[in-house]
């Protein structure tokens, strides 16, 4: 049986490949490079974070894509950058739960893809949407109070892995 939750979830998440090119991604990575702080409460996550990111031109473009995908008029309310190396992760119970149904964007600005490094969206604990490591790709996900997100463990077999994601939260204008 398909539940209404599953129907909703299935329609409200998509991947837009090649949302940004490698040159722009490299420029953004360079601007972020010196600003990371380490998060290491290890029962929740292990990653580098820039808590507030301001990239007006990029965000305008991303908001436009999100508006097209969702049919909603949206504006950025929060943006942060995450960088995960080998052995890093961010668990679902560390995820922020947002009120209402905001739209979350996960833009992969990594230099190279990393096998198995994914963003998972869960509805009541069950994964319903996976964003694989794909430089330039944009995940557009309508969230709700029952949706959580986790960034999967990055294998130490990929010792030089550097997964960089911009996580942007949008709300209706």
């Amino acid at each position, binding site marked *: 049986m398909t539940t209404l939750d599953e129907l909703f979830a299935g329609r409200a998440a998509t991947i837009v490949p090649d949302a940004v090119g490698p040159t722009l991604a490299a420029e953004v990575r360079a601007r972020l490079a010196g600003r990371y702080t380490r998060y*290491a409460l*290890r*029962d929740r996550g292990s990653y580098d974070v820039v808590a507030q990111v301001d990239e007006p031109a990029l965000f305008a473009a991303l908001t436009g894509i999100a508006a097209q995908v969702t049919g909603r008029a949206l504006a950025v309310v929060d943006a942060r950058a995450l960088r995960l190396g080998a*052995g890093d*992760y961010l668990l679902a119970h560390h995820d922020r739960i947002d009120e209402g149904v905001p739209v979350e964007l996960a833009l992969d600005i990594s230099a190279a893809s990393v096998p198995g490094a994914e963003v998972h969206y869960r509805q009541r604990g069950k994964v319903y949407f996976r964003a694989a490591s794909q430089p330039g790709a944009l995940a557009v996900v309508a969230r709700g109070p029952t949706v959580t997100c986790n960034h999967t*463990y990055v294998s130490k*077999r990929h010792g030089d892995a550097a997964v960089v994601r911009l996580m942007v939260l949008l709300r209706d204008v």
Partner: protein
Amino acid sequence: MWRLGPQWLDEARLAKAWREATPFPHLVFDDFVADDAMAGLFESLEEEPVERYEGDILAFEASAPEPATREMAALRDDFAQLLAAPLTRITGKAVRRADMRAYAYRVGHYLLPHADHQDGLGRALAFAYYLPSPEPPEGGELELFRCAIVDGALTSTVPDRRIAARGNRLVIFDVSDVSLHQVCEVLRGLRISLAGWFYP
């Protein structure tokens, strides 16, 4: 099947070692199963089915929480019966029964940091027994974290001790809000173990 070796005779020494262990109480016993009992142990596990488990915190293969075979159930019950009384005296935690699952961590498998304590479950002590592996693992260590709590909230988690998953080694460790631990990713080989918790 299970027998206590001479290292279990001096319970006062073990109790002291338990209390003084850092970052939180634990004990490590090598050569836990006698050589002449090892083949029987593997025989008891032969028919126990395992399946893959995957979540944000874990990736491994394991048997079901309740044993599928009589042999595995007997192994669990005998283990609990043998160890409950000495562990009660050594750790000061009154335990009577245990659960037990078989685990196989292959290359890329892991269990990320967590404390086993959950209200209502009654877990008092945790254990892991590492079976001799046909391909001894690289990685797969049990890593213990030193935690700080301020006003009831965890404020730091620092890796403190790594215990290798050496074959025929038994590790017993405390279950509490600060017993944060993980199974490091297996990078080569196969890590096979029996693990679970003791309960009052």
